[in-house]
């Protein structure tokens, strides 16, 4: 058990409850004597008992460490015995049990991990907090932690220095370290092990560490860089997740909304006077969509590999664009609201979205997404599903077109509705029926339709 290179230490044994030390009485063996196991080495005197100390091992008594009359703590060595066959190796070490070897491996691993290791882009909350407070570009900070991780101390040191401090010579020579350098080859394996075990949670996010808002720098006369904001980063990872995980399919339908246009024109002035918000086409569309989802609830579902989860509440995610991002706040329980209520919700979420006042609560629970792409002039779009929902519908621009009705050409207000669908859950037939129902609902709005 003990790996002394020269001599085995003989410690004071634990003699009784609460005893922490013992005094050596008479030494019965002297240095140079050959000792058999269980031979009495010396007398031990304590508050409770006086006892004879048997030798735990066989060998030559090398050295007496505690003289007669001196006191030693329990566990401390009183003498050293050289066991047969252990002679010849140099460098007696007094310290270290099993712990020391493992620790040495750890420290050498960290010493060598100066290269851009796998922990380079793993940021602790403390590091992100500091970087955010001081506007630090973490790519400029030298990481001295395990696997090249940037530690809190590194950020503080960077702040104190006031300038980038790149680590000199990224481990071409391990001998540069402050501790005696181990051979590079054996050190490589423990290092890999040490870097793996640190964190195992956060499967999706860990691939895309949150990137703090950083100053724009770098570039040349032909190109320049803009920062990836945290929200841009979130959008990017969500979009990629949706596109890679969901097999998208796409379909479109054309709807005649001439009657709806007439209806809205009739009501809109009075509505804004009474309610203080705009009566938009989108409110009517939402009503038509929600009622169609009620008839085809499978549109309101989530793929869960071994099952399909159909949501009972119809919560409509509404895409709200700003200059540099898009957010999807949610109209909760949209099926329980009338057209006026939906118009009010649309107005409120749009206003909060553009002024950056949306809260986390506003963004959760969506079951189906509607995007009013017509508001920026589009007549056709191919939307990406708002993961993990089953489908997304866009409402394009309303355009006056010549349309053939009963073999006559008429000028009608037409609009396209585009639908992207998760083909694992939905197929053409069901989506066709769903879109037909939305179309019927929209075309069914007429002068008689009630807003409340």
């Amino acid at each position, binding site marked *: 058990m003990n790996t002394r290179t020269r001599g085995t230490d003989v410690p004071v044994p634990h003699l009784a409850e609460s005893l922490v030390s013992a005094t050596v009485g008479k030494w019965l063996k002297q240095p140079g004597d050959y000792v058999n196991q269980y031979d009495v080495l010396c007398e031990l005197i304590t508050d409770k008992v006086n006892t004879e100390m048997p030798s735990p091992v066989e060998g030559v008594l090398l050295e007496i460490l505690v003289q007669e009359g001196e006191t030693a*703590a329990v566990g401390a060595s009183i003498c050293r015995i050289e066991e047969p066959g252990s002679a010849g190796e140099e460098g007696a070490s007094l310290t270290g049990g099993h*712990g020391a070897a*493992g620790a040495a491996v*750890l420290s050498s691993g960290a010493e060598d991990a100066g290269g851009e290791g796998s922990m380079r882009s793993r940021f602790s*909350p*403390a590091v992100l907090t500091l970087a955010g407070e001081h506007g630090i570009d973490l790519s400029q900070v030298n990481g001295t932690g395990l696997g090249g991780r940037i530690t809190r*101390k590194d950020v503080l040191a960077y702040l104190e220095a006031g300038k980038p401090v790149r680590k000199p010579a990224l481990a071409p020579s391990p001998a540069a370290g402050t501790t005696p350098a181990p051979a590079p080859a054996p050190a490589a394996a423990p290092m890999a092990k040490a870097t793996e075990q640190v964190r195992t949670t956060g499967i999706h996010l860990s691939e895309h560490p949150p990137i703090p808002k950083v100053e724009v720098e770098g570039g040349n006369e032909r190109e320049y860089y803009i920062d990836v904001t945290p929200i841009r980063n979130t959008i990017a990872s969500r979009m990629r997740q949706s596109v890679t995980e969901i097999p998208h399919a796409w379909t479109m339908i054309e709807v005649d909304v001439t009657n709806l246009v007439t209806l809205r024109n009739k009501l809109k002035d009075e509505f804004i006077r009474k309610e203080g918000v705009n009566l938009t086409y989108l409110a009517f569309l939402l009503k038509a969509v929600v009622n169609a989802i009620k008839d085809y609830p499978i549109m309101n579902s989530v793929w869960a590999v071994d099952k399909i989860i159909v949501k009972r509440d119809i919560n409509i995610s509404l895409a709200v664009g700003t200059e540099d991002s898009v957010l999807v706040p949610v109209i909760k329980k949209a099926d329980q609201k009338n057209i006026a209520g939906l118009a009010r919700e649309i107005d409120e979420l749009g206003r909060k979205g553009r002024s950056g006042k949306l809260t986390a609560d506003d963004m959760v629970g969506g079951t189906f997404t509607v995007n009013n792409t017509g508001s920026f002039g589009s007549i056709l779009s191919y939307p990406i599903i708002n993961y993990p929902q089953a489908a997304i519908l866009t409402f394009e621009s309303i355009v006056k077109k010549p349309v053939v009705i009963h073999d006559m050409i008429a000028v009608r207000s037409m609009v396209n509705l585009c639908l992207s669908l998760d083909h694992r859950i939905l197929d053409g037939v069901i989506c066709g029926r769903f879109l037909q129902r939305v179309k019927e609902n929209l075309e069914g709005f007429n002068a008689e339709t009630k807003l409340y």
Partner: protein
Amino acid sequence: MAVITYLEGIRSAMQEEMERDATVFVLGEDVGKGGVLNATKGLRDQFGEERVLDTPLAESAIAGAAIGAAMYGMRPIAEMQFADFILPATNQIISEAAKIRYRSNGDWNCPVVIRAPYGATGGSALYHSQCPESVFFGTPGLKIVAPSDPYDAKGLMKAAIRDEDPVLFFEHKKCYLSITEDVPEDDYIVPIGKAKVKREGTDITVISYGLTVHYALKAAEELSKEGISVHVLDLRTLQPLDKDAILEAVRKTGKVLIIHEDNKTGGVGAEVSALISEELFFELDAPIMRLCGPDIPAVGMAPTIEKFFLLNPDKAKEAMRTLALI
């Protein structure tokens, strides 16, 4: 000033309080002749057997009698011979002592001190080595202290005796004779609910209580030679935890290791760790780590198993170094 042991700290606190206040008395198994661990040695000679009561071998009765006396105006100090044997008294402690103030809407209170010598000294196996503090830790209405040095042992014992509510006094047996310190002669108390910084440092924070504080300090001393600077906080009181001191200590380094001898699951470290992540998540620079006894029923008798089971300065050092290098 006088250099005294941890055990003498506890004994002299009881002695001085008994001199100061006639309502203070001790009771327990064999306390008359000093108790098996010598904590009450000499008290019967000084105060007589009416104030140093030998009891039957029945912890429920010791705690129950002490609680009754406390509610009637006395200030008893009940000794559990070993903390391992406190379990028969848990019903009295948790259901009666801890709840009486609340249950009586403040009409009654229970200023009892229950002493529980705990922890492994080595070679004592399962019935003389346990750390049962987590059994009581989540009980509102109880105060729990666990000093690590003679100064705190004495000051906290005095504070516990003078406290108007029940205090569980966990004293680590291995500290009894191994930890000595200069302690002032004058009458002082260490307030319950206050932790103490034992060492200032900047790289990692270690939070501990009892014997393992000394392991942490020893390891910290050795690590300082490797250039690792360790901040050590001694909780001293487990219930109520000194939240401010814990948060302040963690804030210093952003890396925290909690060390205790009691087993890991459901231990004091779990609560301290939860507290830190609730309050200081955005200031953490590494996962909160714990070094605790393993989740095994109790320490084994065989030296090999004991060595595996018990913490020591080497294990502390290794864990501290690992955290420092992250």
